[in-house]
């Protein structure tokens, strides 16, 4: 068991580098989420939609940014999650996800820590947003 995190304003969550996006990942996510839109799975469907290739589900990228908080789930939970999508993710893309603490607020439930989060491929941000992580009082 990890101890409870002690975050200070401006602290960065260690950026994580994910394995290259492959078709099996998208097939698994389609099955688990129920989103079988062809542009995520089938070359023909992507081509018909005018895309250079199949693209990852946007919600998979959101879930990937959520991985930043899984080490802390004994001590709190993701209370709010906001993501804006700004780029498409293709097969073979390597995403890096990270975040930094931008606000702390005392609430009845505990300390709400707001992090700016991002998912990027090299210098291209494909999604960004904010996560409110509620850290419980002991």
């Amino acid at each position, binding site marked *: 068991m990890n101890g409870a995190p002690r975050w200070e304003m401006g602290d960065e969550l260690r950026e994580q580098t994910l*394995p290259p996006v492959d078709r099996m990942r998208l097939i698994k*996510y389609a099955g688990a*989420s129920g989103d079988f839109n062809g542009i995520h799975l089938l070359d023909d469907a992507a081509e018909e939609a005018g895309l250079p290739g199949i693209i990852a589900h946007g919600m998979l990228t959101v879930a*990937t940014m959520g991985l930043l908080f899984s080490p802390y*789930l*004994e001590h709190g939970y993701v209370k709010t999650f906001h*993501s804006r999508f700004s780029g498409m993710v293709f097969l073979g893309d390597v995403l890096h996800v990270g975040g930094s603490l931008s606000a702390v607020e005392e609430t009845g439930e505990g300390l709400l820590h707001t992090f700016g989060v991002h998912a990027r491929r090299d210098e291209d941000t494909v999604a960004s947003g904010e996560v*409110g992580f509620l850290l419980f009082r002991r």
Partner: protein
Amino acid sequence: MTLYERLVGLRSEPVKNLVERGAVRRFAEAIADPSPLYTDEGVAAEGRYGRLLAPPTFPRTFDYGRVDGLRLPVAGLIHGEFTISYERPLLVGDEVLCSMQLKDSYDKTGRRGLLGFLLFERTGDDPGGERIFTTNDVVVVTEAVRRGMGS
């Protein structure tokens, strides 16, 4: 008139969903989330809730019912933004009554031509009527897709 304007404010009949252990395990595997609190009942039993947790974006898998008259194009929609807020964590075994509403529909003309914006709200309540979560999505309909819809 913007796309779907006459449907704004309509809400679907709530649908009962169950947070199933197997569905949560498959979802956690699909997003490669290693937290044992999603999959290991022994670890979860020692934790604050005594039950397995569901990942924050898991409510994406629920059935939210249908808004009468709302038929979205199958292809070409762009997901612009996603927001979820929880009143409490979602746990395996929870029964959740889910429904959705088209909150707004407006058009904007930009670099990419005429874009239609649709704002959807989805909610999940426990059987006692207490809110568990609310999600908000912005979905963009491009001009090409709109032409295909014949509007």
